């Protein structure tokens, strides 16, 4: 069963290699219950049906959470796979439009899948106590020494709070996950004056910058 319907639009969660084009039941965006692949020459877009056309789609926090949950399921289900995550809210009104985009973006998407092969995103936040002062460069030196050896790269995220000393996303190979966890343990011992919020794994949103059509 594909769950496909010619009368509805397709909501896209991510792009995987066609070999990884899995199908599963999920609490999907807009109340859909099935996530399934639409394939095009070695690529697969993982989608669910939404009844609205693109112009009528109403964004909501609940659907944003469903989007994240489905993308994480794609990332981890049955041993996991590499996924290029799409932003929340990407809808195609016709399958043809979606496959046209896959065709036009195919070289970029295939290159990105190769670059991200086996990679996960992990979040690290270091938080100071209320009124506590810390030397930023010393913190960064410790973080770089403990976490860089087991990660491929990192990006700095928003400083959305005065309490945040550091907020980064790391790209880590699945095989290096245990090594990275050990780095987090070492960091928490060296900087036990700070609180650490370690989160993930997530699809590598922070390391993908691909704009494709749709809405």
């Amino acid at each position, binding site marked *: 069963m594909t769950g496909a319907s010619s009368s509805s639009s397709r909501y896209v969660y991510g792009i995987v290699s066609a070999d990884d084009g899995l199908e599963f039941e999920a609490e999907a965006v807009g109340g859909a219950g099935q996530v399934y692949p639409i394939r095009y020459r070695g690529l697969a877009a993982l989608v669910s049906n939404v009844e609205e056309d693109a112009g009528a789609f109403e964004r909501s926090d609940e659907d944003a959470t469903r989007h994240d949950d489905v993308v994480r399921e794609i990332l981890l289900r049955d041993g996991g796979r590499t996924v290029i995550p799409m932003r929340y809210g990407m809808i195609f009104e016709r399958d043809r439009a979606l496959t046209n985009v896959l065709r036009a973006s195919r070289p970029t998407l295939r290159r990105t899948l190769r670059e991200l092969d086996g990679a996960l995103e992990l979040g690290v936040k270091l*938080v100071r106590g209320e009124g506590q002062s810390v030397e930023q460069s010393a913190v960064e030196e410790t973080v770089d020494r403990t976490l860089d050896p087991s990660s491929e790269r990192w990006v700095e995220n*928003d400083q*959305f*709070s005065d*309490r945040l000393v550091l907020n980064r996303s790391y790209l880590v190979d699945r095989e290096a996950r245990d090594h990275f966890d050990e780095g987090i343990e070492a960091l928490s011992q060296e900087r036990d004056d700070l609180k650490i*919020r370690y989160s993930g794994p997530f699809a590598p949103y922070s390391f993908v910058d691909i704009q494709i059509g749709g809405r």
Partner: protein
Amino acid sequence: MLVLDDLLFRPIVGIADALHSLALDECYDIDALEDERKELELLYELDEIDDSEYDRRREDVDAEIEEAREVHRRLTSGRVEVREL
């Protein structure tokens, strides 16, 4: 006369628009409210606030975000009604 009216009138409208936009961003700053929500989630995850405080503050900030979005939607929809109170 028509041209003169236009020239005189447009700069005033431009300034009024800019002031209006500044006031709107100041009073209904969605980015700042979303930062506040993220900070709240962080403090909750770090066990610095308990369930009841989190629920209460989260409800408040969600309502403020919703109100700010609604105001932005209305004031950028092109159907703005100005009334004297």
